[in-house]
Each structure stands twice: as C-alpha cells, then as structure tokens.
C-alpha cells in the first residue's frame, strides 16, 4: 500500500500536482488507486466519505451551510498498472452559502488497457461557490478509456466552474458528458482543453440549461488533434428566463490527417434571453504562425506555441 502511495505521488507530480501539499495538515485530500482509498486527510468543515464497493468507490463530499473551505481540496485518482478499472461515483453537496475548490489529478501513466469512469452528482446550493479543476496525465500508450459523467444542479445566486485539461500523454478514448441546470442569478462556466494524437478519439458533450432569471453560462472548448486523432465537440446551451445570457466558444485545431467536428447548439425560449456562439475548426491560424516566424521562430515551433497558448 505504501509503495502504491509513493508511486501515485510520483505520477501525481508528473501530472503537475505538488506532492508536498498532500502532506500538509491544513489541506484536505483523497488519494484513490484503482478502487481503493490509499490516502486521505480532512481539514475542518468538510465531510468527505469514501466507501469501497465491489463495483467501485463511492465518494461523498459535503460542505455544510455557510462554510467556505479556505484551501483547495486535492483529489488524486489513478491506475498505475498497465491494466485495470476505476469506477468512481461522486456525490457532491454544497449547502447554501458554502464554498469549495477541488483540484483533481487523474493519472494513468502506464495504461495499456485501463478504464476510468467517473459519475458525479453535484448540487450547488443557493449562494454557494464551486470550482472543479481536473488535470489528466495519461502516458504515451493511449490504452485508456476515460468516461466522465456529471449532472449538475446550481441553485440561486451561485457560482459553478469546471475546467478539464488533458494535455499530457495520449488522450486515448475520452468521452465526456456534462449536463447542468442553472437557476436565478447564477453563473456557470465549463471549459475543456484536450490535445489528442495517434489514434485518440475524443468526444465532449457539454450541455447547460439557463433556467433562472439573469443566469449566465459559458461553455468553452479548446481542442487540438493531430496524426489520426479525431474529436467531436457537442456544446448545447439553452436559455429560458428573462435576462439569461449564454455563450458557446469552441476552437478545434487540426493537423495532419486528424479530423475535428463541432456541433454547437444554442436556443432560447424567452424573448429576453440570449445565447451566442462562435466555433472555429481548422488549421492553425496562418497569420499567427507567420507573426511568430517573423520574430525568428521556425514554423513548427511557431505552431507549437500557438497551440500551447490556446490550451494553456
């Protein structure tokens, strides 16, 4: 177990995490290898329960009414062997007026045949604030299937932000589905950034319904694919209350024989609501590349810099 923990920490560091933070007694964290909890720590004000089941692991996370967790809570999920399965069911409840920032690192550095499925039910109470940042590190073999699912309900005057990044190693087969409801005066921002190559297959489906008066929503995706990789991005944003405003912003860059598709769907069912979208799919912008080349960069380096900036 200790050996697994140390190896997880090493993979966590490779993914951009800071292992020292997991030894800080003021920081809450949970480390899950496969379907086993191998490390955890709770700071005041947070209820974090993890139950190992035969089919996977149930993580229940509650922040009590009015409690704002001062420091980000760190989650580390991973499978270290070449083969394995991880099934995580997350139940997150932010009670009214609470606040939580989660930083999750998902590490599959040796994956040849690994499946990771995360199903989340997230309730964000009135006046609550929730931020979830998820960073993946997959290694170079591409043998990983990642299936994140989330159903999100956001109360009144609340804030919700999710930021998914898979930029290191092969994406493998990535299939994201998020669905959110946003109530009065609340805001939602969902961002996904993925770099795929080899035979990676990427599908992102993010949907949000702006149901409340004055609610706000932004669905943003930044995808780069090269080699034989393919990506499909479905962004679905509807607004049905006065003053609701939403925007879909999708950029997909294609290199080589890769292919990318964007399917933005925007809709309103109230005359005082408005949803806009912009989608750009294609090669790297020639003017950006030439601008950097005119500063002395080689074309390949200029393209890397443009794509790296977009995915930053």
């Amino acid at each position, binding site marked *: 177990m200790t050996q697994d923990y140390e190896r997880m920490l090493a993979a966590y560091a490779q993914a951009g995490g800071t292992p020292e933070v997991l030894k800080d007694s003021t920081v809450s964290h949970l480390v899950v290898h496969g379907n086993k909890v191998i490390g955890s720590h709770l700071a005041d004000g947070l209820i974090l329960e993890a139950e190992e089941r035969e089919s996977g692991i149930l993580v229940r996370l509650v922040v009590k009414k009015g409690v704002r967790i001062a420091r980000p809570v760190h989650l580390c999920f991973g499978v270290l062997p070449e083969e394995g399965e991880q099934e995580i069911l997350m139940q997150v409840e932010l009670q009214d007026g609470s606040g939580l920032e989660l930083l999750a690192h998902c590490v599959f550095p040796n994956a040849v045949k690994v499946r990771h499925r995360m199903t989340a039910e997230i309730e964000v109470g009135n006046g609550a604030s929730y931020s979830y940042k998820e960073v993946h590190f997959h290694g170079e073999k591409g043998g990983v299937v990642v299936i994140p699912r989330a159903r999100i309900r956001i109360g009144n005057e609340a804030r919700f932000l999710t930021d998914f990044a898979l930029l290191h190693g092969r994406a493998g087969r990535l299939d994201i589905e998020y669905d959110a409801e946003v109530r009065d005066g609340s805001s939602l921002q969902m961002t996904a950034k993925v770099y795929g190559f080899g035979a990676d297959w990427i599908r992102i489906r993010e949907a949000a319904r702006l149901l409340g008066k004055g609610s706000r929503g932004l669905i943003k995706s930044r995808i780069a694919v090269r080699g034989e990789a393919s990506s499909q991005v479905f962004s679905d944003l509807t607004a049905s209350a006065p003053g609701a405003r939403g925007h879909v912003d999708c950029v997909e860059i294609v290199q080589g024989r890769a292919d990318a598709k964007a399917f933005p769907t925007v809709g309103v069912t109230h005359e005082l609501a408005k949803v806009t979208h912009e989608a750009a799919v294609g090669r790297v912008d020639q003017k950006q590349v030439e601008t950097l080349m005119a500063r002395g960069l080689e074309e390949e380096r200029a393209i890397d810099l*443009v794509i790296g*900036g977009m995915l930053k």
Partner: protein
Amino acid sequence: MGDKEMLRTEHLSLVREGRHILKDISLSVAAGSVHSVLGSNAAGKSSLAAALMGCHDYAPTSGSIFFLNTDITNLSISQRAKMGLTLAWQEPARFEGLTVGDYVTVGNGADRIMRAREALAKVLLTPEEYLLRPVDKTLSGGERKRIELAGVFAMKPRLAILDEPDSGIDILALDNIVQLIRELKERGTTVLLITHREEVAEIADRSSLICSGCIVKEGNPPEVGRYFREKCVPCVTKTCETGERHQNEESVP
C-alpha cells in the same frame, strides 16, 4: 545615413487571384535610413510588406528581393527573420494564452524580461500592467499596435518593416511612435515605413509613392508628399500605372 544598401527589389511583381497587386517594383532602401512608402488605400502597400517578409500567398510572380545583397526571394519567413528582417503587421494577430511578456520577447534568448520591460516602456505601456496580460481580444486595437512595435524594438532587427504603425492609434500615441521610429534608426535599425499619411511619411529620409501596385514617384519626403497631396488624393480612379497619368491631370486641357 550610409550609402550601403539594406534592401533592394528588382522588378518585383505579384499576381493574386488574377489581379496584378505589385507591378515591376524596383526599390532601394539605404542602410541606416528611414524609408517611407506612401500610398492610398489598396495601393499595394501591405502586399509589398508581406512579399518582402515572405508571407504565404505573397510569393513574387517575378522579380527578386535582395537583403544585404543576398537574394532572399525564396527564403522562408523564419530565414529572413534570422537574417535580421522583421515586420510589424498593420492588424497584428492576437494570441490566446500567450502573455505580452512572452510575445514581445519571442525569439529572444537572454535578458528576456528586461528587454520586454524596456520595449513596453518605449511604447508607453506600463510593464507591470502589461507583462502578464494575454495578447488576446481583451487588448484594444491601439494597445495591440503598440505591443507589436514593442516586439520589433525588443528584437533589434537590421530592417523593420512597419506597416501603417500610425493606423488605429490616437494623436498622442502617434508622437510616441514617431519618436520610436527615430530611436530605432539611432540604434542602427533601418526602417521601411508604410503609411497613407504624408505627415508620417515625411519623417523619413527618403520616400516612395505607390499607386495601384507601381512605384510612381521617389525622392525626398516633402516633395513626394506634395505630389501625393496634389495629384493622388484628388485622383478618382487610383489606377495610376506610371505616375504620369493621373486622371485629374488627363482632364486638364
């Protein structure tokens, strides 16, 4: 100004989508000078800048470009830049995720931060405020233009092609840009200044007037500026081929 030639074009022509954009342009830019290229909208100024820099789709149909007596006609943009040639675009690109500090010093090695600070101060942008800002749509057009010029300043090129550095900026910033051009020259950078404003063109040591893709007049800037004001500005057709056949001239008995 020295007599050495920094840039020379010989019978440079460019055809794009069936249109003659540049026609037989032979131009000589002396090392250490500021040379302005003055012309109305759609005269071919930006196309000339793009062709000199080697941009995609602007490869000359015929003719040659020499930089320090080396034929660079078939060199890539990067190769030209490494020789010391650069371009500040009229409408600079925006970059998501790239900071002003990164952009200004891209391609520069040592002392990047110091050079970025110095260059931003030269264009009257407070380094503390701008270094970490993204070069994206959150910047105004005027800010983006100044950052473009700061990038050129930080690069210390041998030849800077400045494509309409005066467009889209306020009058106060214009004084600053004129000062920057003078400073570039003092520092040893030759400047090819492209503009449609004769008062800007007149800060140069020498001037060329371009109309419908042809160089129609060359000489000292006040003389070229006067010709532009008296002949080109009132001209309706803007289809001058040789500089001798302005429509308003032809209409005079």
